[in-house]
């Protein structure tokens, strides 16, 4: 929206100027000739004016570049993949179902569909002794996958589609090959876990009591069989077409083998499956000796014992009514239980977990369900297979595969490895138009497929647990790209916000330059006015001149902005870890450049217009005679207008309070106080009036940081920026009216005999031109204030490493949860060896973690936390040892739950419904204590099965492991597909990186990925620091503006004061002395700007800290003095460097020439 408006406005102004020029060619000619008269001066002016455009251009181009980088990454990651159909959690579904989804007719835009399997594995190259714990294994059908493009051989660049692959042959992408030093022909070992789809049984119970057989003592002292009952018990049950397995079990309590039981399942087609149990397969003949009957033990009466099983596999199962029968010939009276489970796949993992949780303990612990409980099945060891690298494929096209380490194999081979014959977990869809063009069709295809899925669900009558009901269509590329646009736009906004200070400085520079131009031409302007040029024409003349500057400066500004952006992009790329494929390409779009040009032009033009109006207000006689403007006495001051303005501003402030606009509520009263300056002049001397007004503005604005809570969002951000500008201007007004300070400095300088001649001249000139000095000073002070303020803020967010890592030195994750690492190390024969993973480990905790991706997975008091939970959520489950020993501090907690953080951690295990959250969940940078919610708030966790509410017991200080921390058992109840998370506490002095390597190597077979927690935390911290540095570098643009402006102002001052220079040289001032006058002048101004900028910067930062930040965990007040001094040193050197040329020119100036010019 803004782009067409800005462009249109620029065009209107351009056309307007041309028409105005045609209507008044003389004025236009005068203006244009003025611009071209002094080429060198014009160049200086143009350079000064381009700052605004440069900053806007740099922000826009950098934002575009970042978006292009993210976009490229997204496009490369997905390549031709536009739409994805799958069940969350990548559960496999029958391949036939996927075929149904993509059955003809499909929209024309669909170019291809491919049923694919995606699994994970740890891959080892035994020869090189290298491994990669977390690798993607992609099973694809070479024919179906053809529309997604070929693989490219990394060596000979030939294009291949995978038809050549044998069952144990794979392609390895370059990324993985580099890590493993793998080449074609090498053998790799894949350690993986079979895919598990939980089967949930529909249970049918058959209970009864067996009648006892009778026995009688025989003459030999034994017993003889007398009677055997031939009881048959039966029940029927339904088997559906989805049933994969039918399992039956029979339990009876008699511990002795005196019962003959037959468990029989009869299929609808009459087939019978019998499990015969007991010693008496047939009824014994009466009189045969039997074991004497004993009274059953008490416990046997209640426990289910002696189970016997019958298992009907998929191939035997038919839909229809089945019969369960129990034939019993019992030795004594006893109860029995028969149970039949009709096993159907449960695609809702949470539901499956909950089913097993709800099972009677006897049943759950029985071998009957041994391999079926998902929590059991998802943990435990993996399988291994050796594969041969057929080719290493280049990191392009589909081989990029989300920039992951990937192995590609034939679909059937992958299905066989992972135990999911006939199933896949991904259905990829590519639309016509290639990598980018597919985007146009993705949404319509998504919508079509959703309709198709609805049809399938309707026609099959799918239950909520069926795969049909859980399949989801995802226009993955479109969504990813929308996310990247959002991220880039936020970045652009932030850059523009911090660049706005430089823009304000640039505007001040423009006004300054035009004031100087007007001052320099005062004489001729006076003459022009005297010979009949109206004030309006004068403004027009200046505007024409300014327009020419505007045009060239905007054009140059765009180029400079591109250059600046190039540097920023370079900086961003340096922030990216070297092993990452993410790169930001420098991207300058025509739209961004045109917008920067238009915004820069409008900004400059508006300022030029203001400066022209200001210049036109000259007194003709004084201008012609070169007389200075007379001081205005109190009585002459126009006070009514400022008084009215102050009143209007106060009304505006009230409006601000009513509409909750902090900018209005804070800034309007400050400006009203400013406007009181001229009013006060009626009763007070000019200087006193300004000192009083500016002092009041400073006091009020500083107080406002404490009085008003910072408004959320852009209003609050802008209010800080605007308050900064107001403060600086007020402080500048105060300083330029403090003549006493200037005289003090002069006196101080006079102590040196060398500086005595220059002291007074150098200190009095800045006061002589208060407006110009004020603008220059404000500009520089503003820049310093912003840099100091940000430096302080960047400094106070230095996290405490121990709090971040919880005192643990090594952290590790594994896809497979291994409950007993010690035993695993023992089994591997590592204990006591060099490679013993526990060599330096004092103790460790095994936790589980789970990552949920999707909208609003967690809510706090009904709202999604920002930056977390919105799109994803992380969960950690712990047990008592962790609760007792961890060193993660709590920032705040419900004191009724415990007096120490560890007590609260324990309490969470004891009391259902409690959780602990990391600070990142409740963080709100704009809240007074940095938190949006506190302990006691309700945390809602949304899973596919429904929602669960918890109370937040405490808030952790750390931000490294951001998420929800809860009881492990509770977490297992919520999520089935958890991963292992381990925290190791090392012996004092142990090398955490070496220990992490040992641990990772020892447990690579379960895919363990271990890191030094300390290094990780430090890197996390350094990463933030680097981002801060990047922003600081951007803020330094303002410094460049400040430095350049002082150079320009000095250059203009030298030109303007040629006559004085000539006179000084005539009366015997040496070159050095003349140059020193200007140098001291610059240094005095710089020093004043530094004092204003540094003091206000620290003060504002402190006030914001006290009012808004102090309560945020891990934050402590501190001023990075060295950084500030370093910055001031750079500013000093740069400023001196920028003024060397004009200073030298002043020194070199021939006195005769200087005097002749004006005499």
């Amino acid at each position, binding site marked *: 929206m803004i782009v067409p408006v800005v462009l249109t406005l620029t065009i209107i102004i351009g056309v307007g100027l041309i028409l105005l020029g045609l209507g008044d060619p003389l004025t236009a000619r005068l203006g244009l000739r003025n611009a071209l008269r002094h080429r060198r001066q014009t160049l200086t002016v143009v350079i000064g004016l381009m700052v605004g455009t440069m900053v806007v251009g740099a922000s826009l181009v950098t934002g575009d570049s970042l978006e292009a980088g993210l976009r490229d990454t997204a496009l490369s990651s997905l390549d031709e993949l536009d739409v994805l159909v799958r069940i969350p959690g990548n559960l496999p579904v029958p391949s036939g179902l996927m075929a149904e989804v993509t059955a003809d007719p499909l929209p024309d835009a669909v170019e291809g569909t491919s049923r694919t399997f995606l699994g994970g594995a740890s891959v080892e190259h035994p020869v090189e002794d290298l491994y990669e714990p977390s690798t993607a294994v992609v099973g694809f059908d070479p024919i179906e996958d053809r529309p997604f493009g070929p693989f490219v051989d990394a060596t000979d660049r030939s294009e291949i589609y995978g038809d050549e692959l044998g069952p144990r042959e794979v392609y390895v992408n370059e990324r993985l090959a580099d890590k493993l030093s793998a080449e074609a022909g090498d053998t790799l070992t894949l350690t993986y876990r079979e895919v598990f789809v939980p089967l949930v049984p529909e249970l049918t119970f058959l209970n009864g009591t067996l009648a006892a057989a009778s026995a009688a003592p025989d003459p030999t002292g034994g017993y003889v069989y007398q009677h055997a009952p031939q009881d048959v018990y039966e029940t029927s049950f339904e088997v559906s077409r989805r049933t994969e397995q039918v399992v039956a079990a029979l339990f009876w309590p008699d511990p002795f083998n005196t019962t003959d039981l037959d468990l029989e399942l009869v299929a609808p087609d009459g087939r019978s499956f019998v499990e015969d149990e007991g010693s008496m397969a047939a009824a014994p003949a009466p009189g045969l000796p039997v074991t004497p009957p004993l009274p059953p033990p008490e416990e046997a009466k209640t426990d289910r014992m002696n189970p016997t099983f019958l298992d009907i596999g998929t191939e035997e199962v038919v839909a229809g009514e089945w019969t369960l029968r129990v034939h019993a010939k019992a030795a004594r009276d006893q109860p029995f239980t028969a149970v039949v489970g009709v096993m159907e796949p449960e695609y809702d993992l949470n539901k499956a977990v909950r089913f097993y949780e709800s099972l009677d303990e006897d049943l759950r612990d029985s071998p009957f369900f041994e391999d079926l409980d998902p929590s059991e099945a998802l943990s435990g060891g993996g399988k291994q297979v050796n594969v041969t690298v057929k080719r290493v494929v280049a990191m392009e096209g589909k081989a990029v595969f989300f920039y992951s380490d990937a192995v590609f194999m034939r679909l059937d081979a992958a299905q066989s490895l992972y135990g999911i014959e006939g199933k896949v977990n991904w259905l990829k869809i590519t639309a016509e138009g290639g990598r980018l063009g597919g985007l146009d069709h993705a949404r319509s295809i998504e919508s079509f497929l959703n309709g198709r899925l609805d049809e399938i669900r309707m026609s099959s009558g799918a239950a909520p647990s069926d795969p049909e009901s859980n399949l989801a269509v995802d226009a993955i590329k479109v969504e990813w790209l929308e996310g990247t646009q959002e991220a880039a736009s936020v970045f652009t906004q932030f850059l523009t916000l911090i660049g706005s200070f430089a823009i304000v400085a640039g505007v001040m520079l423009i006004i300054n330059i035009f004031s100087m131009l007007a001052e320099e031409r005062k004489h001729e302007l006076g003459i022009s006015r005297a010979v009949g040029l109206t004030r309006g024409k004068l403004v027009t003349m200046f505007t024409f001149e300014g327009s020419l500057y505007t045009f060239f400066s905007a054009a140059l500004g765009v180029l400079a902005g591109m250059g600046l952006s190039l540097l920023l992009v370079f900086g961003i790329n340096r922030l990216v870890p070297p092993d990452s494929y993410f790169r930001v390409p420098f991207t300058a779009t025509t739209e961004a450049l045109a917008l920067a040009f238009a915004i820069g032009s409008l900004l400059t033009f508006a300022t030029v217009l203001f400066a022209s109006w200001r210049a036109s207000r000259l007194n003709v006689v004084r201008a012609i005679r070169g*007389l200075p403007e007379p001081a205005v006495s109190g009585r002459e001051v126009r006070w009514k207008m400022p008084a009215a303005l102050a009143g209007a501003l106060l009304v505006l402030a009230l409006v601000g309070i009513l509409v909750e606009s902090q900018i209005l509520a804070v800034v309007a009263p400050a400006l009203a106080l400013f406007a009181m300056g001229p009013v006060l002049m009626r009763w007070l001397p000019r200087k006193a009036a300004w000192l009083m007004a500016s002092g009041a503005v400073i006091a009020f604005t500083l107080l406002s940081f404490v009085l008003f809570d910072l408004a959320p969002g852009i209003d609050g951000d802008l209010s800080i920026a605007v308050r900064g500008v107001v403060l600086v201007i007020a402080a500048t007004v105060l300083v330029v009216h403090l003549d006493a300070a200037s005289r003090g400095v002069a006196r101080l300088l006079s102590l040196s*005999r060398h500086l005595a001649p220059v002291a007074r*001249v150098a200190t009095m000139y800045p006061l002589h031109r208060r407006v110009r000095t004020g603008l220059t000073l404000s500009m520089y002070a503003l820049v310093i204030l912003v840099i100091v303020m940000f430096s302080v803020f960047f400094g106070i967010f230095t996290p405490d490493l121990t709090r971040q890592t919880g005192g643990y030195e090594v952290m590790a994750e594994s896809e497979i949860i291994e409950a007993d690492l010690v035993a695993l190390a023992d089994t591997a024969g590592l204990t006591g060896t060099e490679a013993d993973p526990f060599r330096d480990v004092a103790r460790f905790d095994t936790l589980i973690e789970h990552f949920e991706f999707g909208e609003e997975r967690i809510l706090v008091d009904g709202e999604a936390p920002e930056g977390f939970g919105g799109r994803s959520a992380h969960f950690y489950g712990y047990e008592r040892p962790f609760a007792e020993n961890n060193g993660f501090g709590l920032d705040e907690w419900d004191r009724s739950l415990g007096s120490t953080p560890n007590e609260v951690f324990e309490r969470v295990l004891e009391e259902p419904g409690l959780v602990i959250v990391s600070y990142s969940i409740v963080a709100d940078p704009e809240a007074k204590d940095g938190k949006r919610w506190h302990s006691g708030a309700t945390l809602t966790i949304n899973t596919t099965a429904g929602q669960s509410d918890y109370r937040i017991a405490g808030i952790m200080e750390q931000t490294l492991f951001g998420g929800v921390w809860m009881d492990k058992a509770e977490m297992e109840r919520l999520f089935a597909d958890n991963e292992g998370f381990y925290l190791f506490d090392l012996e004092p002095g142990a090398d955490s990186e070496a220990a992490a390597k040992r641990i990772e190597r020892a447990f690579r077979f379960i895919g363990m990925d271990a890191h030094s927690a300390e290094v990780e935390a430090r890197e996390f911290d350094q990463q933030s620091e680097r981002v801060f540095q990047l922003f600081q570098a951007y803020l330094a643009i303002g410094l460049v503006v400040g430095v350049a402006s002082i150079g320009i102002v000095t250059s203009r001052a030298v030109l303007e004061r040629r*006559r004085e220079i000539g*006179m000084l040289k*005539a*009366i*015997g001032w040496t*070159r050095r*002395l003349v140059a020193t006058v200007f140098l001291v002048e610059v240094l005095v101004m710089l020093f004043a700007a530094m004092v204003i900028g540094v003091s206000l910067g620290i003060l504002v930062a402190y006030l914001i800290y006290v009012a808004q930040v102090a309560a945020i965990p891990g934050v402590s007040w501190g001023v990075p003095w060295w950084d500030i001094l370093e910055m001031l040193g750079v500013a000093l050197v740069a400023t001196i460097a920028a003024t060397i040329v004009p200073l030298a020119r002043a020194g070199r100036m021939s006195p005769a020439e200087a005097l002749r010019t004006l005499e």
Partner: protein
Amino acid sequence: MHAASITHIKPPSVRAAVPRRPAPEPEPSGAEPPLVATDRLRKTYRSGDLETEALRGVDLAIRQGERVAIMGPSGCGKTTLLNCLSGLEDPTSGTVRIQGTDLYALGDRERTRFRARMMGFVFQSFNLLPVLTAAENVELPLLVTGVRSRSAREQALEALRLVGLSERAEHTPAELSGGEQQRVAIARSLVHDPPIVWADEPTGNLDSENSQDIMALIERLNAETQKTFVIVTHDPDIAGRCHRTIRMASGQVVPEPVTPRAKGRARAAEAKR
């Protein structure tokens, strides 16, 4: 030393007391070399291919205590001559000797110091620094020669007293009239007691009344301190109040036409002899 040398000058009396008659030329002191002497002084300006000969071999001599006017039409080279004589502008050829010192044999630094010690300047547009008070402006030549601030202030006030402006010492130029500003400029030119004062159109920006005042002041200071005043002027009245006039035309010194006033001056000198 400077203060001592100027304190014997009487403060200005009322304007009416200043005699308006041709000044008697100072007594030639036998073989004493002239204070200022030039030898075939030439100055050519180049602007691209265009060459303008501003001075075409000027030879002149000015004695200590003389009050000399340089007159001539616009563009004849008066100001260029003054600039070359005062060391402000390098001549293309020829020499300028001040008290026997070849001005252009000195380096820039030495020449600047020489100027600071030996010369005072009065300009048409006063050239006071607008940011300084009258006293501070007058102090400038002293400070540059290393005089301590306190002493410089005392001498500046004394110089202002001599030009009749002690009451206006703390006023800035903007608060002074044109005549007052020029008096401040004269005080500045004398405060460090230089033997020569160069005045380029010192009355050019003043009305006739103020011009007469300034010339009376110059005459008095010249008479009382025996300083040499070299005055560039268009005004024959001003020139008439000098001991002699150097006439310039087309970059050359031309003989002075015999006017009744000149005849009178010649007769007066004869009578004195």
